[in-house]
């Protein structure tokens, strides 16, 4: 039995190097594979995800939030949602879980070169986009980058360090908003679509990358369409129940497409051919 | 893989179900095509009949309460203690202070034996099961 065939579902052990508390609901786990040789050889692209195994909890797909430019570790930002993510939140530095991947079709990084970039994210939605942003900045993206990030409350704002760093870059404009203010917050209050209203964007020059809760996605898509954004210039990443992540078990199907193989990154043009719950009214 | 015909243990329809045995484990369940009730299909519980059989929290050894905690003991210790207690209470009350609950999930033969144990060995008619629920 050729051994490499056995690997299809077999995860690789990975040790937690560091746990960053983003907010009460989200933690970022910095991981490195226990096998150093495999760890060095490990590479991925922004937008791809890993199947994370936790003892007795099975597996769950989690998108990689770090940039592939920094080799040696991977960041997984995890929101407390189900049995596996709850178990992860109880893990500390030095604990071992297991990963397999990378899986999925990444963001089309090549098509972003030479275009203005608009990132719109809500809550944990910033995780996959963070990988794209940091990669663009690391590879010297000249055109302007606009980042709009919405959270529920100021204490819910995640990736504060990154937002700080992005703010200092001259070609990056980073704007935050919250649903509900808290004392000491002097920033914008309201939906991320309000921020979008004030941005001056050239639709034909800009690529929009979105990720967040379905309501936010629907609202933003509406605005972008009104401002003349072409469907193939709007890119998002979808979340679905996954089991095999290699296109066999069909849990993640959207009509005839599989989110694990044909996604998770889709352009709006592709999504419109499918009846996708997130797009319906 | 061997298919052994048995009767479903869930509701009162009594479907004919094949349990698939492989290397000492029950690894699947499927309907009998010609059985008068199942007729080649099962409800969702029938199709997953095999899933609870090998669950790790199945009771696998007798337990006895020792200073407040249920601790594993041998069959002989558990049974002799049980027989002594049941016999004592039945003897002292001529059977009226001992009660037995049988189960609609056990077989006819086991229900018959339990009511015989109650009446013949413990001299009581205090036996019932949740037929009313």
């Amino acid at each position: 039995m050729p051994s490499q065939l056995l690997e299809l579902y077999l995860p690789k052990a990975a040790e937690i190097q560091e746990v960053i508390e983003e907010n009460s609901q989200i933690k970022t786990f910095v991981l490195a594979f226990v096998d150093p040789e495999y760890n060095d050889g490990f590479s991925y692209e922004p937008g791809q995800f890993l199947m994370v195994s936790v003892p007795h909890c099975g597996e769950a797909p989690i998108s990689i939030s770090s940039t592939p430019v920094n080799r040696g570790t991977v960041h997984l930002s995890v929101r407390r949602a189900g049995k596996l993510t709850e178990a992860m939140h109880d893990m500390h530095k030095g604990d071992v879980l297991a990963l397999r991947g990378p899986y999925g079709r990444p963001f089309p990084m090549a098509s972003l070169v030479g275009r203005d970039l608009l990132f719109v994210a809500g809550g944990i939605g910033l995780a996959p986009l963070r990988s794209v942003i940091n990669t663009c900045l690391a590879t010297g993206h000249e055109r302007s980058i606009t980042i709009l990030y919405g959270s529920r409350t100021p204490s819910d704002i995640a990736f504060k360090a990154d937002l700080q760093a992005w703010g200092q870059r001259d070609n990056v404009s980073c704007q935050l908003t919250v649903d509900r203010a808290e004392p000491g917050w002097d920033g914008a209050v309201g939906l991320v679509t309000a921020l979008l209203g004030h941005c001056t964007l050239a639709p034909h020059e800009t690529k929009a990358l979105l990720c967040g809760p379905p309501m936010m996605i629907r609202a933003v898509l509406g605005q972008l369409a009104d401002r003349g954004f072409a469907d193939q210039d709007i890119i998002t990443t979808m979340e679905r129940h996954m089991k095999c992540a290699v296109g066999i078990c069909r849990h993640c199907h959207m009509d005839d497409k599989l989110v694990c193989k044909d996604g998770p990154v889709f352009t709006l043009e592709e999504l419109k051919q499918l009846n996708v719950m997130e797009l319906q009214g | 893989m061997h298919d052994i015909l048995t009767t479903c243990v869930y509701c009162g329809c009594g479907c004919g179900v094949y349990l698939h045995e492989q290397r000492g484990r029950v690894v699947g369940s499927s309907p009998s095509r010609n059985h008068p009730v199942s007729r080649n299909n099962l409800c969702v519980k029938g199709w997953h009949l095999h899933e609870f059989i090998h669950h790790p929290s199945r009771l696998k050894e007798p337990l006895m309460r020792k200073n407040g905690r249920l601790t594993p003991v041998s069959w002989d210790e558990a049974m002799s203690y049980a027989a002594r207690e049941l016999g004592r209470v039945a003897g002292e009350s001529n059977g009226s202070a001992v009660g037995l609950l049988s189960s609609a999930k056990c077989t006819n033969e086991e229900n018959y034996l339990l009511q015989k144990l109650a009446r013949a060995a413990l001299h009581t008619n205090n036996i019932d099961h949740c037929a009313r629920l």
Partner: protein
Amino acid sequence: MAGLATTFGSGAMTNSINEIENAQVILVIGSNTSEAHPQVARRMFTAMDRGARLIVIDPRRTLLARRADIHLAIRPGTDIPLLNAMMRVILDENLADDLFIEMRTENFYGLRDMLFRLDLEEAAGICGVDLARIRAAAQLYGRAQKAVICYCLGITQHVCGTSNVQSIANLAMMTGNVEKEDTGVDPLRGQNNVQGACDMGALPNVFPSYQQVDNDDYREKFERAWNVSLPPKPGLTLMQMTHGGKDGQLKAMFIMGENPVLSDPVISKVEETLDNLEFLLVADIFLTETARRAHVVLPAASFAEKTGTFTNSERRVQMVRQVIPPLGQSRTDADIIMDLSARLGYVMDYESPAEIMEEIAMLAPIYGGMHHDRLENSWGLQWPCWDREHDGTPFLHKYYFTRGRGRFVPAVHEPPAELPDDDYPFLLITGRIYHQYHTGTMSRHSPLLSREAGEALLQLHPEDGRRLGLRSGDMVRMRSRRGEVQVKAQLTETVKTGEVYTTFHFSEMPINLLTISAKDHFSQCPEYKVCAVHLEKV
């Protein structure tokens, strides 16, 4: 079960499951058939595809109710006025089967007098269904040549459970819809072998085959067979045992394969009783809530690890075959009982379950011809099966009712023990759901079933939800006069306003802390289907 015993003389399903496919009209009352008895619902769907008409009487708009030609969304606990109203309409439009009444029944005049005194408008008012729809249902049932009635715990779990059943029997006898193929009155027994457990005499008042313990001839027969003297007085029922309380009569109990701490009403009383026993022995396959309170817990073999027989709802005795040996040190319940009996000085020695069934066949007339070798090579036999030559009985009372003539027993409305009021404005109905079973001992240990239905949900009408500020998924604190639980709300049109529904499968939401211990005087069945609760957002 007791209800039918008095009217027909036998408490089991009169006809077989497959006959439902040929019925012209199917009346389903107090049964969520597609969730509790899917194979029976399958026959109903087949019958409907062949042109049969379906009447569903259920407070909730279940899947079956949505499929029905006529759905009477009755107010819980008012089955008798509805059935009486239907019978009155059948009388007024002389759809009764006078020949059948004359030849096969008795005391019809007692029923007729009560029906003529009935005020139809008032009866319709009590059960909250408009009279025109009751009339339509009565006409539909009355005009059919072949009509069947299926009922379940929605009928029996009331203080007037026995009268409910007798009213159903009255309706069937009045229209001659019994004693014939493809007709009948079918109690859908809830569990795989509840029919068998009753047949085997696991009841306080009867030996196997319903031979009364206080009948001297029967008792002497068993005393000779078992050569031991037997107690003459009927024993305590389940509720009398588990609700004895501190000063209850019982000092020791042996509970085999049951979980009363979760399935009996007023759990606080049950726990108090069990904790005050000097000795509690439990045999089960998992450490249930009841087993945790025992002094000794014995590991039992599951149905896949032993051989024996189950009797299903249509009286079919079928083989259960061992697939694998008992796990770990567990032993079959039969071995446990035989070992215990020997230690108590009464030796029972049977080499195999087949030998036990031989003894049953000798002592229980309706199981006279049930031998494992016959059951081994057939799809089982339906009792009564008098001897080895007899091929079983597909439908009962073929020429005569077991008790000779079917007896009409008129019944009048008996309101539930506890109705909603200002303090407890909502009416709680408890019951089952499709993916789980009973107290979850088996079904909650099945990964896929737990994925499909993993937690308790309280079905609540959207309007009530809005008034209480609740959305689906919010937690609700639900209180009755006896206890309190927290449960997740599920807003749905399945239930009417003012009524809520939940289940007893989930130990973390022990609904039976709230239910009432009022029970039917005759059958001792507790009133699970009606009690008053108060709801508030957590």
